[in-house]
């Protein structure tokens, strides 16, 4: 989806601003929002690609005018509503009205550490050989899927060079096609592709710049 979240190369956001005193969280609700999102992710009712997709498909004006953890909360509410895990009336009331749905897993204080230490690797065995090799020229497809994708717009249609192979990884574009487990898992080779700055940004751009993108195999085509 050509969403507002796909920010690479957009202009007009001004200088990068720094906080004089950095705080990990700027209010208690931010820390609760972060941790609830992590904990609900562990419930297994969605996957990381579905949660990204929920945030990215917020209305553009809402996305741009929301703070970071506000986007997380809006995304979380959306994921819960879509799965009938909560109702709008319950969100408004802050109280249980309807019975819960069954979830795969609920983190407890005793299981948090192990869950965080394990993470959620996306690397999977892959039997078919990789189509591309290191040093090979490839082109990022000029594609504009309606659904979730991780190929940023600024790279689309441009030629780059394969820098490395990362093995088989779960393809986000397919991983978002089924809302509930078992999710739609398609494994593809994942590559890092480097693009010259002037290829992406024009002949008058800084020639010393290179940008890499991590791209699944179906995002790429060979250049003859």
């Amino acid at each position: 989806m050509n969403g507002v979240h796909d920010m690479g190369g957009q202009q007009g956001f001004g200088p990068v601003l720094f906080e004089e005193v950095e705080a990990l969280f700027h209010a208690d609700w931010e820390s609760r929002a972060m941790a609830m999102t992590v904990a609900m992710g562990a419930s297994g009712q969605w996957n990381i690609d579905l949660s990204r997709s929920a945030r990215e498909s917020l209305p553009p004006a809402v996305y741009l005018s929301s703070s970071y953890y506000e986007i997380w909360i809006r995304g979380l509410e959306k994921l819960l509503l879509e799965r009938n895990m909560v109702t709008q009336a319950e969100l408004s009331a802050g109280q249980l009205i309807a019975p819960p749905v069954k979830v795969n897993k609920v983190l407890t204080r005793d299981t948090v550490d192990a869950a965080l230490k394990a993470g959620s690797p996306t690397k999977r065995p892959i039997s078919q050989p990789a189509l591309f090799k290191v040093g090979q020229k490839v082109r990022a497809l000029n594609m504009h899927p309606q659904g979730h994708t991780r190929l940023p717009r600024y790279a689309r249609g441009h030629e780059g060079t394969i820098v490395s192979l990362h093995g088989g990884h779960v393809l986000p574009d397919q991983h978002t096609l089924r809302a509930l487990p078992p999710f739609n898992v398609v494994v593809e080779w994942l590559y890092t592709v480097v693009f010259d700055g002037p290829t992406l940004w024009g002949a008058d751009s800084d020639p010393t710049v290179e940008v890499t993108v991590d791209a699944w195999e179906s995002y790429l085509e060979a250049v003859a």
Partner: protein
Amino acid sequence: MTGHSHDHDHSHDHDHSILSEMEVRVRALETLLAQKGYINPAAIDRIIETYEKEVGPHNGAQVVAKAWAEPDFKAWLIQDATAAIASLGFTGRQGEHMVVVENTPDQHNMVVCTLCSCYPWTVLGLPPVWYKSAAYRSRAVLEPRKVLADFGVPLPENTRIRVWDSTAEVRYLVLPKRPHGTDHLSTTELAGLVTRDAMIGTALI
């Protein structure tokens, strides 16, 4: 900008009506999710505690210092960062697949996530506000040299800048150049020189 502040200063110049609206909204959500049995508030506390007190840039600094001090570890780190970093006990969420990129006299590396906020939590903790900002996400790939100037980092004109956009589940850590005159320092002392921003590629050491 060398590390996290744990001082929760609530006197920022924010719109407090919006903050309190979010406070209410998030509390309501937590109450509801706990009543449903989907979350356990003690688990929420433990997750916060982990990222406030335990996981942070001091982890990454240990990785960098060890790489500076031990050529074999550095070689392993470049070859298989996930395994080398795991050997120090840093594994898990948002660090499942690690790549370390080394700054050299010819090439400076810098990390961004233009699509969201992907960041190597296991070695750097949670990202700072600027890393998640629209300004950084939009400009880092388009005009990294100007962004570095915002950070007060002057690079020689002919130094190549490679910007790593974290568009998949690979997480990047920059291995900064070891400063001159540090041969006599212990690994612990070296770790004390390593800043978070240097490991993102928006600072030099």
